[in-house]
């Protein structure tokens, strides 16, 4: 599977240290190839949300690492995951990002597959050998496909644990993102913002739970909020005592910022009826967690962050595509959802006041990585003061690099796993 010879495989164990990462981890093509098989083919990978696939025939295309797949809702209402690859001579069978179709026809020789994968059309079959059976050439299903509260994950690994277990301690925080909806479901019906940057995919993985950079890199955004007297709503204060970073099993991570009581009051005052009903349903303590600003990373490619579902797609060691789907809270007032979309868009559209600055920073990193004379990237912030909870999660201050250390602990384990081939 690997094109590189074994002798050229770098010593990952040495390159990923508890407090630092070697620059080659962000640029070496051999490491990138290893990541695609040892990480993206081993874990669950987020591929779709059920709200994108409501009706029979709805489909979307996505990627597991570099591998193109199709997710579709079949006639019987179930979800399927197929490799987007004709079983004949390899062409993709679907060229659109999303749509509604009951079958996919390969553009090359017109082999036609139902969205269940069944091969239903092979033109001019008479020239195939007599024992040719189309059932042997159905589109290949992705080995595992599971949905957790609407979030659809796929895995190349038939042995992978159920998704609910995989989410580990992160599960209650994913629940907290979804439970802000009074119906307990969210919808990705608002389309998406798509970004591309010159840089490694892990720069984005690290960044969404980085509580250190925001006030510096995104200074203009916070200044604008202050100028408009909006600094107090929804975004938690940057105070180190009002929030935390957490790393969980399986590489998941959380950056949380608590809102002050008067901020919660401000948020609630705009939609009193909705939030009061929600509090009656979820309870007072849980309500505080629901209204905490949460940037949640689900290893290796998913963020549920503020008002968006963010999906990281590695393209090459130095090219990444990020898709951000603003999500709506089902059952919430239209104006609340419109406000969520507006907030998201001001920050994170390709013209936005926040996201593009992150990508500009990643590109500065990509350029700086070329300085081979300085090989290490530091992740030691707060390492002296990291607390381990009884459930195994590790906790630090909001600007600590607890989260990144957690991501790389899991990364290192997977990259060194003996059964990885």
């Amino acid at each position, binding site marked *: 599977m690997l094109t590189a010879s074994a002798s050229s495989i770098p010593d990952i164990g040495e390159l990923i240290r508890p407090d630092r990462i070697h620059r080659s981890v962000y640029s070496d093509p051999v490491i990138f190839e290893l990541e695609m098989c040892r990480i993206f083919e081993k874990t669950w990978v987020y591929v779709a949300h059920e709200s994108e696939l409501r009706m029979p025939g709805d489909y979307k295309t996505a990627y597991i690492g570099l591998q193109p797949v199709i997710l579709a809702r079949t006639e019987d209402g179930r979800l399927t995951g197929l490799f987007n690859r004709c079983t004949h001579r390899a062409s993709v069978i679907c060229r659109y990002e999303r749509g509604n179709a009951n079958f996919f026809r390969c553009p090359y020789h017109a082999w036609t597959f139902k969205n269940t994968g069944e091969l239903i059309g092979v033109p001019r079959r008479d020239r195939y050998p007599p024992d040719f059976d189309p059932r042997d050439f159905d589109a290949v299903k992705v080995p595992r496909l599971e949905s957790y509260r609407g979030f659809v994950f796929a895995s190349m690994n038939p042995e992978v644990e159920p998704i609910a277990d995989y989410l580990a301690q992160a599960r209650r925080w994913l629940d907290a993102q979804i439970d802000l909806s009074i119906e307990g479901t969210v919808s990705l019906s*608002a*389309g998406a*913002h798509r970004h591309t940057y010159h840089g490694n995919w892990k720069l984005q993985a690290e960044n969404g739970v980085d509580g250190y950079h925001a006030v510096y890199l995104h200074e203009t955004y916070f200044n604008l909020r202050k100028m408009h007297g909006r600094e107090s709503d929804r975004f938690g204060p940057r105070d180190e005592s009002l929030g935390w970073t957490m790393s969980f099993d399986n590489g998941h991570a959380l950056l949380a910022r608590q809102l002050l009581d008067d901020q919660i009051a401000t948020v609630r005052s705009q939609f009193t009826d909705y939030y009061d009903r929600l509090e009656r349903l979820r309870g007072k303590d849980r309500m505080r967690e629901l209204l905490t600003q949460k940037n949640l990373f689900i290893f290796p490619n998913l963020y549920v962050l503020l008002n968006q579902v963010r999906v990281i797609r590695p393209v090459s060691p130095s090219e990444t595509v*990020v898709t951000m789907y603003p999500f709506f809270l089902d059952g919430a007032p239209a104006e609340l*959802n419109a406000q969520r979309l507006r907030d998201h*868009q001001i920050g994170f559209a390709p*013209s936005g006041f926040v996201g593009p*600055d992150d990508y*500009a920073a990643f590109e500065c990193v990509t350029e700086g990585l070329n300085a081979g004379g300085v090989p290490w990237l530091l992740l030691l912030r707060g390492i002296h003061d990291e607390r381990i909870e009884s459930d195994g999660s590790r906790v630090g201050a909001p600007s600590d690099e607890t989260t990144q250390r957690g991501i790389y602990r899991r990364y290192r384990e997977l990259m060194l796993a003996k059964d990885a081939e």
Partner: protein
Amino acid sequence: MSNAASPSLEEIEALLFLEADLLDEHKLEEWLALYTDDATYYIPGDDPEGDPRTHASILSDDRPLMEDRVWRLRSGAAHAQIPPSQTCRIVANVRLAEVDPRGEIVVHSRLLITEARRGERRTVAGRVEHRLRRVDGALRITHKSIRLVDANMPQYNLTFIL
């Protein structure tokens, strides 16, 4: 056009070309002055017909947000614009589409921007609609929208003003 309020194509083009000049020259305050106080500026995202209240757009500004955008670019701390993009715009195929019942003048054109920043050149292209209105005798822009040819593709840093 027989309507006395209707501008000539020459007057319309002069305004659009002036806008292009001001943006290429980073004269952002002067650019803002071309817009009415109730102006809106819109670049749809992956669904060109999507309602910006319920669908993600690349940009959907009212006048205060346009002012924020200019403030941010002027602040010197908008990292995605350090250093700022250098641009060269071609505004072409300018046509007066209609004068709507409210007296707004609808103008269609095509925009091709070559952008240079940090060692790379890129192009941005789209169909543009301007809505114009006379304010104290002067032609002003009350709405601008750009339908980018690649709006459904991953975008690269559209933090300069298009």
